[in-house]
C-alpha cells in the first residue's frame, strides 16, 4: 500500500557510528538529510494542511450560511459533520481509495472532512451569538442585508470563527501525518519509513518534532492574525 517511490531513505546500516547504532538522536543524519528528506516532507505537509483548511473553510462557510438561513437543516448538517469526524482517519483514507485512487485528492477529501465539524459549529455559533439589536440598528442605519452581514455580523463572529480555524488547522496538521499510509507525502512519510526500518530513532524524533513545531507555529500565527482582525477586542480582553 505504501508506494515505493519518493525520496530514497537511507537505511541506517551505513553512515556515521551514531546512525549504525541507531543512537537516540544523530544530528549528522539530520544535517545530511534535511534537504533530501525532512525539508521536502515539511513543505508537502504545509501544502496538504493549507489546502485542506482553505477548502474546509469555504465549504463550512457555505454550510453555515445555509444552516443559519434554513434552521431545519442546521441539526442534520451538524450530525453529518459529526459523523464524518468519528470515522478513523486511516479508515477514511482507505475507504476513499477505491473511489479516488492513490492521489492527493483522496487525502484532501479526508482532511477536509475532519475540518468541517469544528469550523461549522464555530461559525454557526459565532454568527448566531450576534445580538439581534445590533443587527436591527445596523439595518436601521441604512445598511443592506449584505452590508450588515459583511460589516457587522462577520466581524463580531470573527473570534469564534478564528478559534475554529485554529483548532481545525492544528488538527489537520496532526492528521496529515496519517496521509503517509496512502501517499508518500508529508511528515508522516519519514516517520512511516523510520518505523518500517527497525525504528530509526533520529528520523522519528526529527519528523515528529517538525510536525509538532509546525502545528504550534501555525497556531501562534493564527492567533496573531486573529488579533489583527479584531483590534477592538483587545480593550475589553481581561488578560
Amino acid at each position, binding site marked *: 500500500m505504501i508506494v515505493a517511490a519518493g525520496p530514497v531513505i537511507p537505511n541506517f546500516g551505513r553512515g556515521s557510528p551514531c546512525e549504525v547504532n541507531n543512537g537516540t538522536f544523530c544530528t549528522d543524519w539530520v544535517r545530511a538529510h534535511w534537504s533530501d528528506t525532512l525539508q521536502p516532507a515539511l513543505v508537502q505537509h504545509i501544502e496538504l494542511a493549507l489546502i485542506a483548511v482553505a477548502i474546509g473553510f469555504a465549504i463550512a462557510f457555505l454550510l453555515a450560511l445555509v444552516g443559519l438561513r434554513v434552521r431545519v437543516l442546521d441539526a442534520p448538517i451538524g450530525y453529518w459533520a459529526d459523523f464524518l469526524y468519528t*470515522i*478513523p482517519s486511516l479508515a477514511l483514507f482507505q475507504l476513499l481509495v477505491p473511489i479516488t485512487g*492513490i492521489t492527493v485528492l483522496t487525502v484532501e477529501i479526508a482532511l477536509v472532512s475532519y475540518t468541517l465539524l469544528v469550523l461549522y459549529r464555530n461559525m454557526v455559533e459565532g454568527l448566531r451569538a450576534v445580538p439581534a439589536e445590533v443587527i436591527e440598528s445596523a439595518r436601521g442605519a441604512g445598511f443592506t442585508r449584505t452590508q450588515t452581514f459583511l460589516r457587522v455580523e462577520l466581524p463580531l463572529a470573527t473570534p469564534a470563527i478564528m478559534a475554529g480555524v485554529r483548532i481545525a488547522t492544528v488538527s489537520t*496538521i496532526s492528521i496529515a501525518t496519517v496521509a503517509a499510509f496512502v501517499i508518500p507525502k508529508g511528515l508522516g512519510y519519514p516517520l512511516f519509513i523510520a518505523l518500517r526500518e527497525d525504528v530509526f*530513532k533520529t528520523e*522519528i524524533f526529527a*519528523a515528529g518534532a517538525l510536525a*509538532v513545531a509546525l502545528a504550534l507555529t501555525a497556531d501562534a500565527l493564527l492567533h496573531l492574525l486573529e488579533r489583527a482582525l479584531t483590534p477592538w477586542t483587545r480593550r475589553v480582553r481581561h488578560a
Partner: protein
Amino acid sequence: MTTLADQFQPGTFVDALRFIVDNVGFLLHLAGEQLELSFAAIGIALVLALPLGLWLGHKHRGLFLAASVSNVGRALPSLVLIAIGLVVFGLGFWNNTAALVVLAVPPILTNAYFAVDGVDPDVVEAARGMGLSEREVLTQVELPLGLPLVVAGIRIATIFVIATATIASIAGGGGLGDVIVNQASYGLAGVVGAALCVSLLAFLAAMLLGLLHRAVSPRHGSGA
C-alpha cells in the same frame, strides 16, 4: 509498482462486504483486540485526568494548565505518539497504550476542568451555605451540573483513541488496523472491508457516548 488505483474496480465495496461476511469471526476477534486496547487506554486516562481536572476546576486553579494541555495535546500527531511510544517502550503492551493515554488525557482533563469551573458560583455558594463539605459540593453539585461537558470530553477522547488504535497496528497494536495496513495479504477488498468495520466500531462508540451525553444533559439546557 502496483498501486491501489490499478486494482480499482466498481465492485470493490461489494467485494469488501463479501470479505466481511466471509470473515466475521476473524474481524470480530480483531475488533475485540482493538476495543481491549482502547478501553485500557481510556480507563487509565480517566483515572489520571478526571480527578485532576475536576479538582482543579473545583479550586478554580490551573487554568493555564488545562488550556495548554488541550492545545499541546491537539498538536501531538497520533502517528508521532505511536512512533515515539515504540522508541521509548519497545514493542509490547505499553508502547501503544501509553501513546493512546497521552492522546486521551487532554480532552478529558480540559473538559472536566471547564465543566466544574463553569458551574454557577451562586449555586456552589448556596450548597456551601447548606453545610455541604467541599467534597460533597464537588460530587453532589458541581459534578452533576458539569456532567454533560465531562461526558463530551470522554466522547472526544474515545473517538481519538479508537482512530489511533487503528494506526497502532503498525506498532504491534493488533486490531482491525492489522488488515487495513496489510493489503498484500488481504487485498483491497479486505482493506476496505476492515476500514468499514473500524468506522462502524467508532461510530457505535461515538453514538453510545452521544446518547449518554444526551441522557445527562438538561432537557431545556441553557446551552451548556
